């Protein structure tokens, strides 16, 4: 065997009551490699990571470090001691402490029993410099961007001499620039011989940075591949376990191009703006079309749709629906005018974690009806059952609380919630983020079906490919401003990139 192996996992099996979460899975990590762990939600990625970091005890199998004897890792602390560090998507640091404190928490340099602050700042400075993370050690962590926070979490792991670094969905909340910075850091660590396990949903990122890919499906190992030898489509097919032509099918659905422009516009915005969030813009949306809003994270695409919906109160401009001027200052007014908005942050703005699937589905319709017209029990149950069936929501029952559902199914519940209000204008802000590919495709298909039935849809996604597949028109945003509108032949990745970048290269170094 190769001698530069840092980690071997063999025959890992983990049983949960009634489920085989992992079955006989092998995984090998070499020194100085970035190894993607891929699979749909529920494929067993997280379970494998949790077994490796000692959160779960495995039922069968062995873990060897540095090609040595099988090691027992019983707790996350033990994993850390043995050189396995994990950086999660939700950063497990303290935002109200300084960068240096976060780097050295629990292992502060001491002098005569007291914390040696000078030494701590010095070592922090050195460490950050070595990793080329541009941040002052004395700064409060909460003031740093998410990307910097993530890098600090990584720096902490690196300083603890980790041999295996696990990055669990580190890029979900980063924009392209920040992702690139993170990748640079990962490459630098790779040169230093750290083995990196990279868990992500973004295919592009895998191809940008990873050397190898291990694919899991339903708790079983599909295989280990060299990135260079596995084309994208095949990777998707391996993750889904079937020859997947649904993606192609979506394209053909869209190709039955409907000429919606002949109809009167459903929504017209003139000079609508919201101070500090989105600059004045004009916008027309027609029944039966999917309009995409693209731009970098923070470009104002979410802010634009939030202003339309009244989630952010517009400071000026006019809005017409079906030719009639309307005033929308609050979400409820928007709902009354037939609008619906699926927010970007599902956890923060979408789900009511402790409420049941049923209550989560009917809540929007209930507020639309008003407090004095409560829905009957039977009525609610019928609605809930209808959408659980229609959207194929995987849940134990309608009274199950939504927090026990997977991310994709939670998202479906929220889509059901809005469909129930029978909207004419549906805003979907990142409906497919952090969702497995199967559900993603379902949601894309649903969007096209709904638009065919005459609904007007505003769609935001970080994945341009996904938008190209579904949108007939795209609005491009930059620096809180609408900078372009692309249709027909202009809808190509290059053209969009070009518009996002602003034609010239003055903004770049």
């Amino acid at each position: 065997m190769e001698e530069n192996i840092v980690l071997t996992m063999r025959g890992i099996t983990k049983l949960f009551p009634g489920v085989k979460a992992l079955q006989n899975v092998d995984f090998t990590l070499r020194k100085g490699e970035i190894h993607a762990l891929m699979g749909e939600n529920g494929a067993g990625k997280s379970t494998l990571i949790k077994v490796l970091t000692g959160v779960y005890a495995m039922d069968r199998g062995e873990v060897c470090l540095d090609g040595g004897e099988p090691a027992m890792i019983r707790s996350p602390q033990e994993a850390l001691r043995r050189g396995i560090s994990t950086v999660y998507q939700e950063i497990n640091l303290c935002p109200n402490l300084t960068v240096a404190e976060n780097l050295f928490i629990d292992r502060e340099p001491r002098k005569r029993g007291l914390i040696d602050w000078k030494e701590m700042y010095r070592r922090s400075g050195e460490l950050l410099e070595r990793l080329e993370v541009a941040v002052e050690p004395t700064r409060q962590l909460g003031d740093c961007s998410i990307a910097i926070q993530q890098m600090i979490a990584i720096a902490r792991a690196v300083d603890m001499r980790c041999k295996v670094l696990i990055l669990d969905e580190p890029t979900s909340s980063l924009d392209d620039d920040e992702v690139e910075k993170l990748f640079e850091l990962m490459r630098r660590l790779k040169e230093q011989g750290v083995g990196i396990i990279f868990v992500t949903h973004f295919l592009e990122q895998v191809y940008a940075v990873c050397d190898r890919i291990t694919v899991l499906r339903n708790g079983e190992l599909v295989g280990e591949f060299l990135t260079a030898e596995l084309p994208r489509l095949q990777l998707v097919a391996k993750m889904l376990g079937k020859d997947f032509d649904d993606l192609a099918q979506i394209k053909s659905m869209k190709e039955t191009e409907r000429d919606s422009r002949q109809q009167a516009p459903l929504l017209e915005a003139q000079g609508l703006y919201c101070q500090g969030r989105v600059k004045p813009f004009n916008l027309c949306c027609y029944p039966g079309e999917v309009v995409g809003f693209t731009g970098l994270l923070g470009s104002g695409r979410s802010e634009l749709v939030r202003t339309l919906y009244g989630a952010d109160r517009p400071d000026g401009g006019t809005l017409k629906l079906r030719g009639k001027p309307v005033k929308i200052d609050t979400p409820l007014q928007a709902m009354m005018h037939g609008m619906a908005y699926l927010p970007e942050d599902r956890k923060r703005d979408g789900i009511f974690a402790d409420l049941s699937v049923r209550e989560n589905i009917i809540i929007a319709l209930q507020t639309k009806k008003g407090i004095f017209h409560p829905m009957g029990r039977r009525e609610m149950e019928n609605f809930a059952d209808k959408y659980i069936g229609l959207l194929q929501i995987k849940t134990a029952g309608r009274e199950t609380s939504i927090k026990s559902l997977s991310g994709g199914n939670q998202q479906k519940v929220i889509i059901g919630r809005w469909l129930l209000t029978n909207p004419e204008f549906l805003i979907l802000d990142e409906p497919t983020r952090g969702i497995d590919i199967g559900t993603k495709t379902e949601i894309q298909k649903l969007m096209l079906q709904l638009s065919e039935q005459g609904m007007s849809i505003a769609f935001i996604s970080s994945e341009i490919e996904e938008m190209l597949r579904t949108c007939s028109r795209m609005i491009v945003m930059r620096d809180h401003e609408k900078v372009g509108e692309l249709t027909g032949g202009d809808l190509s990745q290059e053209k969009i990139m070009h518009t996002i970048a602003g034609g010239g290269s003055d903004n770049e170094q």
Partner: protein
Amino acid sequence: MNNKGAKGSDTLRRITGHHLFLPIVFLAVVLLANVIKTPDFFEVSYSNGILYGYVVDVVNRASELVILAIGMTFVTAASGGQDISVGAVMAVSAAVCCQILSGGEVSITAFQNPLLLAVAAALLVSMLCGAFNGLLVARLNIQPMVATLILFTAGRGIAQLITRGQITYIRVEEYKLYGSYIPGCPIPTPIFFAAGTVILVMLVLKFTALGLYVESVGINSSAARIVGLNATRIKFITYVICGLLAGLAGFVASSRIYSADANNIGLNLEMDAILAVALGGNLLSGGKFSLMGSVIGAYTIQALTTTLYAMMISSDQLPVYKAIVVILIVVLQSPVFQQKFRDLRAKLRQNTAASRKEGAAS
């Protein structure tokens, strides 16, 4: 046979899994302890047209607490915090009511102003107190504990100001009725106030969507806004409701002693009300709530207090014993303990299933 057994255990699971299971068990345990200690606990006697007995006493004495606990439940569910000013608001309400009735005198034997006016004014002022709290919490986003601390400290002072530092006595038979007995009715009047409040609030919950709104706002106010709810207004309303109910409790308490004693009416009752909410299985961090749980919690606390009195424990030692019982109950309801409980139940189920299988094999 087996089938029947399975069915039985299924019902058992449904009962033990019910959200009111633990609150009811606690109440039952406290009552049981009473029966052992005082065999005549459940005895109710009837003389002079009035019902007597420990149970009647518990239910009667718990009335104000029940009313407070309902308001506290709403506030807790919607804002994830508690209103600690309710005891003081009770005193304010009593002061307003008595001051209007007495027309400024220290002690009167006939109403100086109509009773209806006095009660309406008292309830209005209480609602204003609630609105003040609601404004601070819902509008200015101040932590509930801090916001209501203002009236908690200032409330009794305000009550003193209203009564000009005196204890105002209303020595009118008609006023005493609401805290004692209506002639010809063997049941103490406060019980009707408590029951009426519970029924009314239940009806409100049944015929409006208030319950769902309150829970939604309490669980995730940001998401509530997106689905068209006005989270600020809903939180505000719960504080107004809480203030109103505190005012009602204040009126009943004042009628019991036919006076406005600013220093003693509702003293420490806010803590009992919070405890009642917690005993009812409600999370103090807000979200889903059970009104019946809080009501049962309130009766449990009063039963406990009465029990301790019946055991000849003096009132200054009372808090110690109360604390011990509370610790027990709260620990039993803690998530860690609940998990242990569930594990144990699963294990038992497995064991019985295994033994059944064995039995079938042999």
